[in-house]
């Protein structure tokens, strides 16, 4: 844990939040948030709307005041500082570009206030515009740019004064799908090049998984899990995380003997099933039910019948009912596989459950 007043000892810590609470009248928006962010890290706050992620970001920015708790940035206690005395750049979902100022004036807005020489400002703005891929747009007004271009300018404005922390509040959600995916990678590579500590708020799990070094999954004002995208996906810490990030089949079963889980009339071999007699909910990702390779003698193979095929492009979401399991399963099958095997609605096939990937939670 952080030691107060000794910044040198924690030089890799960019931000430390401890005991953060936020009340809006009777509503408890944030409950005892503890979080540390390392220098140069890209952290995503991920959660459904109303989970408190934007409130937490605004508290870090000083735009909201926490009801309790402390915030340290680079070892310095900033809990009570007004926004203007903190060190960060921020990009909002609405961009919040000044519509009556041109792109150059927008990007230089914070620089001019620092009384830098004019030549330096021009040089810096041109550098920034090149960095965000809009080198010749200085004379244009924001209204003359596309949404994606406006968001790039907002980003340039936020990093113009070289803050040590960049805050992004759902920066991509107002953009169309293609632009969103493109800008995702641009922001990520820009962040890595500059090495700037970044916190992004998003409700889009794909965005979080593809951009973040670490994801903070939030729900109802508490942190459900903090971890790398792979951790969050592969080893979700709670049923909420499994549900919110990716798709999952939920199977209710009982551990009947060490290493054996019974679901319906099917018994699966499962190493992590140790608490004999416990009723559990087993969460299983669609991709952890495979159609090949399956060889004779493989464990955990079940017979299934295709109920419905939902075409999603290169692969299909297939709903199958199995012999023995009480509920139907959702699996991913590639378009090529379905074609090769001439599978269609009503066809039968064998599926193998990768039980080492089962996540068990108490029922």
């Amino acid at each position, binding site marked *: 844990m952080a030691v107060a007043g000794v910044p040198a000892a924690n030089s890799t810590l960019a931000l430390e939040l401890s*005991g953060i609470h936020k009340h809006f009248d009777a509503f408890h928006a944030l409950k005892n948030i503890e979080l540390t962010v390392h220098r140069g890290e890209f952290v995503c706050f991920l959660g459904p709307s109303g989970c408190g992620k934007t409130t937490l970001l605004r508290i870090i920015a000083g735009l909201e005041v926490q009801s309790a708790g402390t915030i340290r940035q680079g070892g310095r206690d900033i809990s*009570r500082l007004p926004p*203007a005395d903190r060190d960060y750049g921020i990009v909002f979902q*609405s961009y919040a570009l*000044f519509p009556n100022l041109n792109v150059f004036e927008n990007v230089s807005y914070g620089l001019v206030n620092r009384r830098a020489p004019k030549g330096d400002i021009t040089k810096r703005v041109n550098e920034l515009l090149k960095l965000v891929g809009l080198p010749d747009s200085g004379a244009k007004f924001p209204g003359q740019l596309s949404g994606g271009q406006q968001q790039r300018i907002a980003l340039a404005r936020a990093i113009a004064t070289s803050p040590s922390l960049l805050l992004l509040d759902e920066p991509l959600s107002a953009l169309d799908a293609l632009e969103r995916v493109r800008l995702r990678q641009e922001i990520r590579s820009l962040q890595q090049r500059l090495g700037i500590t970044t916190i992004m708020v998003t409700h889009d799990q794909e965005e979080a998984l593809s951009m973040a070094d670490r994801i903070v999954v939030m729900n109802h004002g508490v942190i459900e899990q903090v971890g790398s995208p792979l951790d969050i996906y592969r080893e979700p810490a709670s049923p909420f995380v499994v549900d919110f990030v990716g798709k999952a089949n939920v199977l209710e079963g009982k551990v009947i003997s060490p290493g054996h889980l019974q679901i319906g009339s099917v018994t699966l071999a499962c190493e992590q099933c140790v608490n004999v007699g416990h009723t559990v909910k087993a969460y299983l990702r669609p991709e952890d039910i495979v159609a090949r390779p399956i060889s004779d003698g493989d464990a955990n193979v079940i017979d299934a019948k295709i109920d419905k095929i939902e075409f999603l492009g290169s692969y299909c979401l297939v709903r199958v009912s199995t012999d023995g399991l009480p509920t139907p399963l959702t699996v991913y099958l590639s378009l090529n596989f379905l074609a090769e095997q001439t599978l269609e609605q009503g066809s039968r096939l064998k599926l193998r459950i990768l039980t080492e990937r089962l996540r068990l939670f108490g029922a």
Partner: protein
Amino acid sequence: MAAVIDSGGLKAVRQRVHWTDRIGHAVLILIAAVLFAFLAAPLAAILMQSVENKDGAFVGLDNFIAYMQTAALRQSLWNSVWVSATVTLIAVPAAFLFAYALTRSCMPLKGLFRTITLTPLLAPSLLSAISFIYWFGNQGVLKDAMRAVGIASIYGAPGIIISEIFSVFPHALMILVTALSLADARLYEAADAMGTSAARKFFTITLPGAKYGLISAAMVTFTLVMTDFGIPKVIGGNFNMLATDIFKLVIGQQDFQKGAVVGFILLAPALLTFFVDRFVQRKQTSMLTARAVPYSPKKSRGYDIAMTAYCLLVVAGMLAVLGMAVFASFVKFWPYDLSLSTRHYAFGLLDGEVGTAFITSLKLASATAFFGTVIVFVGAYLIEKTRDLDWLRPIVQLLALLPMAVPGLVLGLGYIFFFNAPANPLNGLYQTLTLLVLCTIVHFYTTGHLTAVTALKALDSEFESVSASLKVPFYKTFWRVTLPICAPALIDIARYFFINAMTTISAVVFLYSPETKVAAIAILNLDEAGEIGAAAAMAVLIAAVSTLATIMFLGLGWLVNRRTQAWRRPAAS
């Protein structure tokens, strides 16, 4: 506010305030103080007066009881009520039909019709009374025709009613045009698809849609008539109404207590209107969703011709009233020598001291437009866009909306009670131009405030957050971003203040001294002295100046738009 903390009873965290934000707080407190001293305190003074006797002792409701026991005063109350109700019953349906023609027909010349019907706003309301005296008065052109339909004399209720209809028409029209333009075309298309008759569409879609606008227009009209001073003064003869009573009681008889009681009675319908209007506006906005498709009328020959005929009739009436005032102002000696001359203008400006009054009016209007716009806009900005001082914000908000509910006469009365009191340190302001300016700003504060708030709400709410993160003080962003973007709204506010300051009588009638007499009041004095020709001339002159000012403000708006609104235009590629 202290939040409930369940984590070990810690004290709520309070953010330090940046020094630049303290500037904003100081200005907000200053504006609150101004509104308090020049609005809340005078109103409180009326309340105090109404429950005290002449020696300042508390007497409860005695003044109200004494008032109700005076038969003459009861008669005035009844007169005010039935005259206001009659005007409302005639003006609102007439304005509704006119608004319907403007919004729901393919009538030609809509813009021209609308502009002409709004012209009464440019002159003091008494202009119409003067004009009707020329039409129907003792030496009126159509006096005999009037006698033939059974009206013995225009002086009194008939004159007041017809003059008020003319002067409130544009107010009702503006509200109803807004209400009727909020139509959703999809409802009419759905009705058409089901084969609904035109009459049924009118009663099931149009009328319910405009219901709140109608309520609002009726209440506003009623209140305007109830509290108008100029028209009953000029054409009322011996017909007493509350608004003229209050003047006689306070200025004539120095009976402040009864004056305060009348002030209270006048405040009641205005307050009611205010709250109904607030309620209605909330309903009205929630009715129209973002997905509504604006209605556009289809051509229909017979209907369009009927609508055009009606509008022509109304416009002809308007022009007859305005035209008569203009014509009479140039007539040498009504009705004996109808040759034209400018002698009324010369007399009014020179002998009638209206010349100096005009200069005072222009000073008043300019100062009100400038300082009013500054106070209103800065106030609205600080309420909408800055942080902290959360206890003060709702108070300032309420004080900003309150003037809409306070008739000018009542405000002026409050000013006498409050500023004329020798113990008041602000007593030195009494009868000065400064006080007239402040009174006029407060009187017309709400409309300007609402215009400013609407303009500010259209701005991204994160501009201030972005500025703070870039360490730019709020006042720089206000100057470089907020102000230029809101420039068109600022010009609207300034124009509104200017025109109203030129034409208002009600509040300032209590507050002027010989040195600070404004033109609209000089006209009243001319009329009292029997110089009706000069009064007409001066009223026309005010209308001319207001028109000129409107054109100048429009020109200014055009120039400012070119400078500050370039970003709204698409790129020249």
